[in-house]
């Protein structure tokens, strides 16, 4: 993750790239020819929009172009944490990553040093998966379901000019 200069691409992004990201990180038109509609709004061609999006994806500037699901409504999920011996962290992380339904796993600087998101089609299955993983790890799993969401929108305005100076 850390091998590349992370902001090397900003200078490579021209005005149209930036407008695409700024205008559509909060939502693309959900219609028959979405990229055609985007192209009309930006005053370019559908083929150009598609080519730009492909390039931005290839650069890693866009992680994807597609639906953002509300995981709380598309199955069951919860944030979980385990405190594992630091020296054995990677071995424990592998066990966690191999468990069904785990889609994020971060090492964090705390006694609870592994943080992951467990998902399942429904609540009973979720509990079952956590119980199974808990016995496999031999360590208690801190279960932190979301009780209330105050802000769940990952998008925020990108300060292009500022990033260019960095």
């Amino acid at each position, binding site marked *: 993750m850390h091998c590349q200069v992370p902001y090397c691409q900003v200078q490579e992004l021209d005005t149209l790239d930036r407008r695409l990201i700024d205008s559509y990180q909060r939502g*693309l038109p959900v219609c028959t020819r979405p990229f055609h509609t985007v192209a009309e709004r930006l005053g370019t061609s559908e083929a150009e929009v598609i080519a730009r999006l492909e390039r931005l994806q290839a650069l890693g500037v866009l992680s994807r172009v597609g639906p953002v699901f509300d995981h709380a409504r598309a199955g069951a999920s919860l944030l979980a944490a385990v405190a594992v011996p630091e020296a054995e962290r990677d071995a424990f992380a592998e066990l966690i990553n191999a468990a069904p339904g785990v889609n994020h796993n971060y090492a964090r600087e705390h006694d609870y040093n592994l943080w992951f998101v467990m998902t399942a089609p429904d609540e009973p299955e979720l509990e079952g998966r956590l119980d199974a993983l808990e016995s496999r790890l031999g360590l208690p799993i801190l279960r932190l379901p979301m009780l209330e969401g105050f802000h769940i929108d990952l998008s925020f305005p*990108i300060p292009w000019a500022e*990033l260019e100076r960095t």
Partner: protein
Amino acid sequence: MSVSTCPSRSAPDQAPAGGASAERDAQGLDAFDRDIVLATQAGLPLVPDPWGAVGREVGLDGEAVLERMRAMQERGVIRRVAAVPNHYRLGYVANGMTVWDVDDAEVERLGREVAAIEGVSHCYRRPRHLPHWPYNLFAMLHGRSREEVERQAEALRARLGEACRDHRILYSSRILKKTGLRLARRAPHA
């Protein structure tokens, strides 16, 4: 933009073709919806008619896929269809999960206030697990450096005031797994 009506399968109150798909899960998704989620969660095909391309994968026509996408959006299963930036690649390399022990009587009001502070990408109330875990409010901060994240955390601390007893910033030292894939197939239906 006008959308031509599709005579089959797409009407929300009409039983979809394919018997197994009539069974809906707790989120109101039937088997076709779940297939559409599976086919799109890693990203749409970048072609002029992405819905048609998804449709060919799941056995529906493009209009039916589009209708289902809209229906899922209306129900809140899909928050938006968007060009999703990778903030890390744009230079937001410091990611701090801040956790706060906030007075239960105040946490709802303060959670909403904190969520509006710059740099907060998401903010949740979660249960405490005493004695090891006293924190009931989570706010994820993103900055271009740890110093920037610390300044943001200071702003949160100031906003929470007396209602906050303790807090921590948990920086991520390594991403061990990250996938956009979310929904697992419950059971094969075809």
